């Protein structure tokens, strides 16, 4: 027993001394891995930008298993990291469980939801349906066949949320348009399966789609590649993916996870917590990407129409229905 106490005491002392030395932020990447060219990579870019600008350093870990969620949170909290940023909705429950044990540490969760947010937790959410609506409009305007495709990653509510906003945008421009929606799979490997993404793209092309929107993490790389090879347009997601196939990617639905991470790290220990932050079009948290790679694809009229819709959504004149509102989509069946 005394041996056990000694070991525990030693561990505690170690944790305390570590806490006194460092107060670096920490970031925990979800199972997709930090170089997924999409969601997690956007988070990493935000953290890296903070590190480059401030010269600070941050703890990081890429998860390998579900049981590591709580483990990583506790280990970083005990090591004195502050704030601890987590990416992905799956972190909501572990953060909710761990946060009360470390009242002096601030936690951030991106994409998650919890019924009551503890005082030291900040939840950051994005209005993905608004950004998806805008790229849906662009897709419908760029489509000649009147058929557009949506390729999701894993079949989960969040991805249906993307698809639902997209379909509403398409129908707003062309009520007769057909939206083909496919999900890559039902296991987490669906986030990183470019081959399957490529097959789905080909299948959608054979059904007449000439613009496809990939909201599928690393799987989207295969979608964009195949679309470029087959001579149709594609739409990237999360990060600006226009450059992956210049002139072949219509636009990208931006979800500024990098900004959320950067801002949280900049605020550091002074981060405001205890509630939800929702980043939509108004906050530039979501949007569509324009740069020299897609300038020739998006005409001035298209941009004007989309910017008009954007202003209307911000002013509240136009409401894009969120899939979460009643777990169903007015424009698309899953």
């Amino acid at each position, binding site marked *: *027993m005394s041996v*056990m106490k000694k070991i525990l005491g030693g561990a505690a002392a170690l944790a305390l001394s570590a806490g006194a030395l460092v107060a670096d932020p920490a970031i925990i990447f979800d199972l997709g891995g930090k170089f997924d060219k999409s969601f997690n990579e956007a988070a990493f870019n935000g953290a890296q930008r903070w590190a480059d600008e401030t010269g600070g350093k941050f703890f990081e870990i890429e998860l390998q*298993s579900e049981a590591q969620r709580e483990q990583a949170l506790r280990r970083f909290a005990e090591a004195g990291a502050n704030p601890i940023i987590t990416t992905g909705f799956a972190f909501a429950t572990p953060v909710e469980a761990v946060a009360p044990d470390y009242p002096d540490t601030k936690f951030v969760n991106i994409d998650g939801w919890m*019924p009551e947010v503890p005082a030291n937790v900040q939840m950051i959410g994005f209005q993905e349906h608004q950004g998806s609506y805008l790229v849906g409009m662009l897709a419908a305007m760029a489509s000649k066949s009147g058929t557009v495709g949506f390729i999701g990653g894993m079949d989960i509510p969040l991805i249906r949320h993307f698809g639902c906003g997209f379909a509403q945008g398409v129908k707003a421009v062309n009520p007769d348009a057909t939206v083909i929606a496919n999900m890559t799979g039902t296991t987490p490997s669906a986030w990183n399966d470019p081959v399957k993404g490529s097959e789905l793209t080909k299948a959608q092309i054979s059904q007449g789609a000439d613009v496809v929107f990939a909201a599928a993490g690393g799987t989207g790389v295969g979608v964009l590649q195949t679309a470029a090879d087959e001579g149709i347009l594609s739409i990237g997601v999360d990060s600006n993916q226009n450059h992956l196939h210049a002139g072949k990617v219509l636009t990208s639905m931006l979800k500024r996870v990098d900004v959320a991470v950067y801002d949280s790290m900049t605020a550091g220990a002074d981060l405001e917590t205890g509630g939800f932050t929702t980043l939509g079009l108004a906050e530039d948290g979501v949007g569509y990407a324009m740069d020299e790679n897609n300038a020739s694809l998006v005409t001035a009229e298209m941009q004007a129409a989309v910017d008009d819709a954007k202003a209307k959504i911000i002013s509240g004149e136009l409401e894009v229905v969120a899939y979460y509102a009643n777990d169903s989509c007015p424009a698309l069946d899953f």
Partner: protein
Amino acid sequence: MEKMPAWADAVLVPLISLLLAAILSALVIIGIGEDPIAAVKLMVQGSLGSTYGWGYTLYYATNFMFTGLAVSVAFHARMFNIGGEGQAMLGGLGVAIVCLYMPWPHWSLALIFATISSAAFGAAWAFLPAYLQAKRGSHIVITTIMFNFIAAALLNYLLVNVMRPAGAMDPATAKFPEATHLPTLHDMLAPFGIAFSKAAPANVSLIVAIIACVAVYFLIWRTKLGYEIRAFGHSESGAKYAGISPVKITVIAMLISGGLAGMMATNNVMGESERLIMNATEGAGFIGIAVALMGRSHPLGVFLAAILFGFLYQGGAELALWTSIPRELIVVIQALVILFTGALDNMVRMPLEKLFLMFRKGDA
């Protein structure tokens, strides 16, 4: 006459395999410019150096014990059950239904029924592949793999459309009620004055796993059914001649195997996450194959191999936390151990056998 004494077969071969894997892993770590000795220290310290580390090591080990036993039982009937993953997923569903939809006065009752339910669900998922193998000759490897995907799709459907609480983004069930929360090792050891880490997820289902190890031992070596399973495994025609029905043994062995895999859910679903999440099994069904191979399909071997793999998992997590060794390389290290202990078994065994034969000749 055996070529090698039993102790060499059971201890020496795995030990040398491990050593080879360790050497190769060290070379890999040196190759990316990290210090292998520090890495090993970190792994040992992180997984065995504190009750916290032990808690995680034993948590992973519990998963692997169940799936390892599942694969072992099927091995004894010369069947390759690759479906542990899917069977464990369905076991999770069995646990979730028991915990969510029935009121329980105490965790012990809930655990008993959750164990039965998870085993029943896991066994049911193994039944169809077993039946197809026995009656139609559809190869069990193919059908069980296919059933893994069907299980994932079924679970996905249920979690996204049926069991998810309104408003939640995570495709998972609600938290199980307080009364079904299993005591962790911290709660169990506190009355004995042992301060075990509070945060670690190892729980009472470890005891269930150990009981399962003992039960499988008695089943395989001390019962008529176990004898029949082994006889069938050694020679189907011989078993037939002895009046053992191949159909019956195939189905029963697979039901037991599926049930054991399903029981894993008492640990990861009921004990750890306390709700059913989509990715609950995360490959433990496949690790079970390596555990059974390394443990020579013997419950004691499975027990030890499961702890080794628990150590590798938890040690790997510590490496990922505190070093810049990328997680892909940690998987490489884990894979090397599997490769040497499972696939390249004969590489160590054959020279060793020759060596022992040489010594024996020397004696004679």
